C-alpha cells in the first residue's frame, strides 16, 4: 500500500521523488537485512560469544584468579602503561602533524601526507622487523646505541617505538579534516586582534579540534592494547618486564590454557570496546546537531 501511494505521488508531483519511494520492495529488503545479520552474527558475534563463554565457564572466581594472577596482571599493567604513554606522545605529534599539513605549504607536504597512512598499509610484523633491523644489536643504529648503554630492542623503549609507529595515523587522520573544515575567519580575527599564533592555537583552534583529538586518542589507545605482530618481535617477551597482554594470551593458547587466555582476552576486549563506543558516541553528536 505505502509503496504504491509513494510512487503515485511521485508520478503526479514534478518535485523530486519522496524518500520512502526508494525503499526497496519487501523481498529485497528482508533478504538484505537477513544477509547483514547473518554476516555479522556468524563472523563477529558468535566468535565473541565463544570467548566470553570460555572465560566464565569455570565461574567468576576462576575468571578473577586468571586475570589477577601475577603474570597476567603484570602483562595487563604493562600493556595499559605503554598504550597510555604512546597515546600521550602521539596526541602531541599527531596534532602537530595535522596542523602543519592543514595550514602550511612546504616542499614535501604531499609526501608527508601520504606517509601518514604508511602504518595502515604495512604489516605490523614487518614493522617489528624493521625496528629490529634498525635498532637491534646487529643494526647500524642499534650498535651505536648499545655502545652508549641504550637498549631499545628486547626492552620497553622498543615496545613504545612499535606502538608509536603503528598508531601514528589515528590522531592525524581524525584532526586533519576538522582543521580543514574549520572556520579560518575566527583564527584570522584573533591574529588581527593581535593574538600570537600560539595564543590563537590555544584559545581558538584547540577548543574546536578537541573532540577530534579525543576520538583519535581513544582509537590510538584501543589499537595499542591489541597490538601483537610488531611487539612479539621487538619486545623480547620477558615475563614481568616486556611481556604484553596479547603476547601473554598467545603463550596461554600455545600452552593449552584456553580458560586463562579467554579471561585476559575478555578484559582487553572490554576496555577497547568501551573506547570504541565512546568514539561512536562522540562522533555522532555533532552530526545529530547539524542535521
Amino acid at each position, binding site marked *: 500500500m505505502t509503496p504504491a501511494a509513494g510512487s503515485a505521488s511521485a*508520478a503526479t508531483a514534478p518535485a523530486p521523488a519522496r524518500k520512502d519511494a526508494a525503499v526497496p520492495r519487501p523481498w529485497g529488503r528482508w533478504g538484505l537485512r537477513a544477509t547483514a545479520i547473518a*554476516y555479522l552474527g556468524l563472523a563477529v558475534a558468535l566468535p565473541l560469544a565463544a570467548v566470553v563463554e570460555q572465560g566464565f565457564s569455570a565461574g567468576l572466581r576462576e575468571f578473577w584468579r586468571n586475570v589477577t594472577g601475577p603474570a597476567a596482571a603484570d602483562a595487563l599493567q604493562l600493556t595499559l602503561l605503554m598504550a597510555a604513554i604512546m597515546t600521550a606522545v602521539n596526541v602531541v605529534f599527531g596534532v602537530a*602533524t595535522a596542523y602543519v599539513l592543514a595550514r*602550511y605549504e612546504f616542499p614535501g607536504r604531499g609526501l608527508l601526507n*601520504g606517509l601518514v597512512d604508511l602504518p595502515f598499509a604495512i*604489516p605490523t*610484523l614487518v614493522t617489528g622487523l624493521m625496528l629490529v633491523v634498525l635498532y637491534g644489536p646487529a643494526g*647500524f643504529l642499534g650498535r651505536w646505541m648499545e655502545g652508549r648503554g641504550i637498549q631499545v630492542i628486547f626492552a620497553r623503549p622498543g615496545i613504545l617505538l612499535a606502538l608509536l609507529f603503528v598508531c601514528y595515523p589515528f590522531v592525524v587522520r581524525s584532526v586533519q579534516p576538522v582543521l580543514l573544515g574549520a572556520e579560518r575567519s575566527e583564527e584570522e580575527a584573533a591574529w588581527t586582534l593581535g593574538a600570537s599564533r600560539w595564543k590563537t592555537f590555544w584559545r581558538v583552534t584547540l577548543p574546536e579540534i578537541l573532540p577530534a583529538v579525543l576520538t583519535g586518542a581513544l582509537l590510538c589507545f584501543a589499537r595499542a592494547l591489541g597490538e601483537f605482530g610488531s611487539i612479539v618481535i621487538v619486545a623480547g617477551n620477558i615475563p614481568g618486564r616486556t611481556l604484553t597482554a596479547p603476547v601473554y594470551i598467545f603463550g596461554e593458547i600455545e600452552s593449552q590454557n584456553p580458560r586463562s587466555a579467554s579471561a585476559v582476552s575478555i578484559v582487553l576486549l572490554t576496555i*577497547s570496546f568501551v573506547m570504541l563506543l565512546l568514539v561512536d558516541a562522540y562522533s555522532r553528536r555533532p552530526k545529530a546537531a547539524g542535521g
Partner: protein
Amino acid sequence: MADVAGPEAADPRERRTRPRGIELLLVAVVVGYAGILLVGPLLGLVWGALRGGAGPFWRALTHPEALHALKLTLLLGLAATAINAVLGTCAALVLVRDDFRGKRVLNGLVDLPLATSPVIAGFMLILLFGRGGWLTPAVEALGVPIVFAVPGMLLATVFVSLPFVTRELVPVLEQIGTESESVAYTMGASPWTAFWRITLPAARWGLLYGVSLTFARAIGEFGAVLVVSGSIAGLTETATLFVYRALDERNPVGAHAVALVLALFSFVLLLGMEFFRRRRRRSYRS
C-alpha cells in the same frame, strides 16, 4: 545539506601559507619526527635485505617455501577482500537505509574487530572449531578442516579485515541519499538495477578506498593466522608467518627479503589508497 561548499568555496579551506620564523621550526620538527619514526625503519629494512648483495636476496625470495607463502598470502587476501566487499556492502546498505530493532547492535559488531587483538581473533576460531568447539560437530560432518587449515585462516582474515568496507561506505551512502535511486524506481527499475546502475557507481571511490584498506589489512595479517594455522611450512604458511619462522630459525636474509616484498606491496597499495581517498573527497565533499 547545510554544506554548500562548491569548488570555489573549497579553496579558502585549502589555503596554506609558507611557514616563517618559529613556524618553520614546527614544520621541521614534524618532518623530522615522521622521518625518524616512519622512514628510518623502512630504509633500515632495505639495507638489511640488500646488505648481502642481490644474489642471496634473490635466492631467498625464490625459495619454494617463500614463493608458496607469498602466493597463499595473495590468495587469502583476495578471497577475504572479495567476501568482505560483497557482504560489507550489504551491511552498509542495511545500516544506512534499513531500520529495525537491534540495528545499533549490528553497528557495534562492525567495529568490534577493530577492538579485537588479532591473537584473540584467532583464538575465537580455535574455540569455535577446535576440539570440543560449538561448531566442531558441524564442520566435521561437512568434512571441512578449519583449524590448522586454510579455511580457518580465511575466516581469521575475513574477521580482522571486516570493518573497512562497511565503515568507508556508510558515510558515502549517507551523503548520496536515495533521491536518484527513487527516480529510477519511478521509471520502473528493479532494486537490483537501481543499485547496480545508480548507487554503486556513485559510491565507487568510497568502496574502492574501503577495498584497498581491507586488502592491505588482509595481506598483512599475522597474529590471527599464526594462532589458527599451526604454521605448517609449504602448506598453511603465509608470507608474514614465513618471515616469523625465518627470524626464529636465524635465516635473516629470507625474513628480510619476504618482508621487503610485503613492504613494497603495501607501498603500492598505499599509493592506490591515496588516489581513491582523493577521488572520494573530490566527488563527495564538493
